[in-house]
């Protein structure tokens, strides 16, 4: 049984905009799945259709074999949604929001209260449980939306840019939390603009552009397709002017920084052998750009954007 199966999904908005064009997508149970694409590519529309927020024009969507048209209640009961925009009642208290949400999914207050307490503790919101949600910081609001989506223990958690605008420390703690619930069996679909996030968390990936799926594979094979990688090397001593590095594809950034491009076939050992032979000592090294980011940019068709 697939966690999510989408066949021939099309969506044309009333203004004629074709947001989705024949989308086919399958997500296995237990996957941590990245759905990536540039702004306006159709990610949020796809999520909107799966969660019934957007009416599809054509196609079939099943969640754990329950069709969203034929058995919407069952299909919806499997899903927990963390939307891109804050969408809770700003005047309600944090805990009320959680308990109310659980009630919509058929949980009694007696079942919902301990579950809410558990999630409030796990997500660091316990101290704010009686606070009106509008008074929370941006990061807390993000965590509240995750807690709300998890109240009914969904089998499929959909996160639409959950870490947008969140500081790096909190982002990393959210990654740890999401990895934990994925390990516990929850299937996760994630859209994000932080490609580092997708690369770190997700095992499967689909890239959507202009309403079409242009790539759908596992993360490892996608990254293996990267034929070149660029590294930035910090050197211990300034480079002499007359040094010969013609064997390498290298660019001198400044006296103590080199940018080196390596083919996938080349090993780092070879690079260091050449550098050592020239008496160059390397203090540290990092990728110039996130690997997935390089691939993403090469896959997604660039369109003219005026800013």
């Amino acid at each position, binding site marked *: 049984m697939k966690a999510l199966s989408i066949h021939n999904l099309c969506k044309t*908005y009333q203004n004629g905009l074709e947001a989705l064009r024949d989308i086919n997508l399958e997500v296995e149970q237990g996957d941590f799945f990245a759905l990536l694409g540039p702004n306006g590519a159709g990610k949020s*529309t796809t999520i*909107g259709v799966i*969660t*019934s*927020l*957007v*009416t599809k024009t054509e196609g079939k969507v099943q969640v754990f074999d329950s069709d969203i048209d034929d058995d*919407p*209640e*069952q299909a*919806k*009961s499997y*899903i927990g*949604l963390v*939307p891109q*925009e*804050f*969408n*809770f*009642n*700003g*005047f*309600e208290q944090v805990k*009320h929001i959680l308990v*109310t*949400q659980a*009630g*919509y*999914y*058929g*949980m*009694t207050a007696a079942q919902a209260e301990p579950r809410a307490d558990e999630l409030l503790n796990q997500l660091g919101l316990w101290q704010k449980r009686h606070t009106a949600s509008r008074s929370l910081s941006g990061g807390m609001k993000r965590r509240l939306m995750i807690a*709300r989506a998890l109240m*009914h*223990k969904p089998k499929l958690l959909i996160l639409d840019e959950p870490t947008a605008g969140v500081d790096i420390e909190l982002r990393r703690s959210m990654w740890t939390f999401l990895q934990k619930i994925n390990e516990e069996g929850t299937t996760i679909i994630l859209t994000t603009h932080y490609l580092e996030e997708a690369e770190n968390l997700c095992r499967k990936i689909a890239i959507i552009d202009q309403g079409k799926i242009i790539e759908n594979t596992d993360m490892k094979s996608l990254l293996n397709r990267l034929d070149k990688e660029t590294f930035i090397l910090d050197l211990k001593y300034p480079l002499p002017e007359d040094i010969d590095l013609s064997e390498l594809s290298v660019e001198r950034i400044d006296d103590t920084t080199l940018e080196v491009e390596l083919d996938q076939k080349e090993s780092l050992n070879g690079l260091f052998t050449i550098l050592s032979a020239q008496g160059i000592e390397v203090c540290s090294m990092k990728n110039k750009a996130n690997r997935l980011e390089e691939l993403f940019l090469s896959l997604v068709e660039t369109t003219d954007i005026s800013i």
Partner: protein
Amino acid sequence: MNTNKHQRHWIAFSTLLTREVRRFLRIWPQTLLPPAITMTLYFIIFGNLIGSRIGEMGGFSYMDYIVPGIIMMAVINNAYANVASSFYSAKFQSHIEELIVAPIPNYLILAGYVAGGTARGLCVGLIVTIVSLFFTQLPIQHLLITISMVFLSAILFALGGFINAIYAQSFDEIAIIPTFILTPLTYLGGVFYSINLLPDFWQNVSLLNPILYMVNAFRFGMLGASDIPVFIAFSIIIVCIIALSTFAISLLNKGTGLRN
């Protein structure tokens, strides 16, 4: 979720109702206090000061005559306003999405909001009734008719508020109907006068006003007197409730104003 479907539906409905009641109780200075003050002024000005010079209306003191209408006016205004503002706010703040993505059938979403509006209407009706006891005694001639009419009227106007909120694109649009339609219909619905005072033509025009039937049936329940037959009032209100419910559910099913 180890509950069966009917239990789940009941829990979802009661959750929605509880949320709605908690909302209007939390903002009681906006929801419960103003009608109490406004209606007290009506009792003082129209009932006491002006009413004492008017004398009797339909065989009752003017104060006794207007009390049922004023209670009914408070009930329908508040039932309408509660659903219109709550549902529109949910759209405005996007937290209506919580309900759309949840496994709740559309008729239950409608029922939850309408029950919330009805609860506020009845709550305000009770407050105004208590206030009225400071000005007059309330003889209730037909308890069942009184209770069922106020209940049905609250439901009908809560449905009206729901439909208004579905179509509304701004807060102004949830104020237009109450200001330009509901208030004139209420004032012309026999709250302060008997339509028997009007010329024949205007009597017939008044019969097109649904609020006239509610006010008169409610007045019949309390005083035992009405300008129109009570069974016609009940029939009209029940037909209107069925029609508006069907329409509201069809709007929800189509996703009008809610889904892209």
